[in-house]
């Protein structure tokens, strides 16, 4: 069984964000970056399947040079090979165009499964795994909370629906699954894993390598911190002042004490 996991590098959620000088993006100079949350769960699910059924796990990321760290971390945890899609030409592409880059990079890999996170924590399109499914004509399931193999070429996926509903869906290989966070408990890399990582292959591919010449299909015309519309009463002062004001609000305004 051959599984590719798509993993993306995103700014740490606690990072303070500033709009950059172009007004169309964020200032990335002082940011710390991490692996997108749901993608770590996707990797773990792939590694568990490989351990149970055999096979190979390829990890694929597209991004700036710094995002190679995502690939290295995944290789340290037990992925077998890395695929790094790197080209300045990818920088301003919309998700539909990016999906064509992934489709071109993955089409000859003979994959059985493609795992991705359900949504990236930065741009949050919630689309890539399904766009690729259509380009490569695979089956798909989104918001996956559990997986189970049925024979060697069918996978069952438990999908999360709204308001506490779930659904199992059966997918023929090849299949693309977008993984919801909480599906498993992602592992940490072992020291041995980190040593082994250094011997693993990471292939880098550019737009030219993939025979692509893409132009963006959407344009970002503005990026801004949204204006607050709600009138919030801010409780401020020293810690002691804040605490006594809060007790007063709980007791006399909201009346819950």
């Amino acid at each position, binding site marked *: 069984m051959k599984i590719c996991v798509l993993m993306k590098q995103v*700014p740490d*959620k606690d990072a303070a*964000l500033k709009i950059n000088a172009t007004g169309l993006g*964020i200032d990335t100079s002082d940011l710390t970056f991490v692996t997108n*949350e749901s993608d770590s769960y996707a990797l773990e699910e792939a590694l568990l399947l490989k351990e149970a059924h055999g096979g190979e796990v390829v990890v694929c990321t597209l991004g700036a040079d710094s995002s190679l760290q995502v690939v290295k971390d995944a290789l340290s945890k037990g992925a077998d090979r890395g695929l790094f899609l790197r080209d300045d030409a990818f920088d301003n592409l*919309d*998700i*539909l165009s990016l999906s064509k880059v992934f489709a071109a990079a993955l089409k000859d890999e003979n994959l059985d499964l493609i795992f991705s996170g359900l949504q990236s*924590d*930065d741009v*949050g*399109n*919630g689309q*890539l795994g*399904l*766009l*690729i499914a*259509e380009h490569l004509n695979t*089956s*798909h*399931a*989104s*918001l996956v909370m559990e997986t189970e193999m049925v024979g060697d070429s069918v996978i069952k996926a438990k999908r*999360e*629906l*709204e308001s*506490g*509903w*779930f*659904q*199992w*869906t059966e*997918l023929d290989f090849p299949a693309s699954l977008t993984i919801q*966070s*909480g599906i498993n408990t992602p592992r940490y890399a072992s020291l041995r894993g980190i040593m082994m990582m250094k011997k693993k292959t990471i292939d880098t591919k550019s737009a030219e390598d993939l025979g692509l010449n893409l132009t963006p*299909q*959407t*344009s*970002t*015309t503005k*990026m*801004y*911190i*949204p204006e*607050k519309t*709600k009138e*919030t009463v*801010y*409780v*401020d002062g020293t*810690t002691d002042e*804040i*605490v006594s004001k*809060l*007790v007063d*609000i*709980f007791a006399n305004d*909201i009346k*819950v*004490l």
Partner: protein
Amino acid sequence: MKILVYIQRDGDSIGRNSIEALAGAQKFAAELSGEVMAVCLDSSLTEKLTGYNISEVITVSHDGLNTYSPLHFTAAMEQVIADVSANVVVFGHTYQVRDWAPRLSARLNAPFISDCVDADGSTGLTGIRQVYQGKINTNISAEGLVLMSFQSGAFRADSVETGSAAARTMDVDLSSVPATIRPGERFKESKGGVDLTRAEVVVSVGRGIGKEENIPLVKDLKESLGAELGSSRPVVDYGWLPHERQIGSSGQVVTPKMYLAVGISGAIQHQVGMKGSDNIVAINKDPNAPIFEIADYGVVADLFEILPKLSQSIKDYKS
């Protein structure tokens, strides 16, 4: 400019997100001097739909569409969009739409501007999206055929214009849709013991608590207030609290007299579970956290400084 709104059924009615999307489509149709049409892959809602200000209601009924199936829905919509020569296709951003609209986008080579909070039709069509977990907004435009979905609450359902619409049925050919995706029955998991929906006060904890060992800090606070304990999703994903405590689109929906959010950023999926609370109080160290967009009372501070003293002061006050 033809704007086609996808109508999703919810039980016997039109899904709330679809009505909101319709209201949004009517708004920017006016700005674009466009025409709004609606399509429903289910014949039971036609009569309800003709009561809105829509130029045409298209109903598709086919055995392959009786229960949700992503490849069938994609194929049916592809045919409807071609038939009406739509320029914009509008959806409510439901879990179902998340599961097939991206496929349609790739099939039609039409960009999908997903999960928008607003749209602007004053200079062409622009979708307004939240990025970076609701901390930043971005305006996205596209030319040609565009798909667009709207987050729950983006438009008000009660602002939808009524009218009288013509209706027609359309046939689709689904004979070449492969059976590679076989959805099963929907089911609910047996519920955990806690019902947070009746709580008068909920103290809810998010990732800002940092680690499992710090959870007792919030437990103290909820004890002192006589409250129930709630949480955001990551706290449950990490196993720090059981799933029955989760508030949000994949957890419980609560409307207490007071909701005290501690170290929670206020992502939309969390907000849908608590924004109906009478009073929302948020403690968060980031002044730009989206939770402050809906908070009645805000404390911009480090929770580790506030919580211990707050629990003690409440106990002192009560005795």
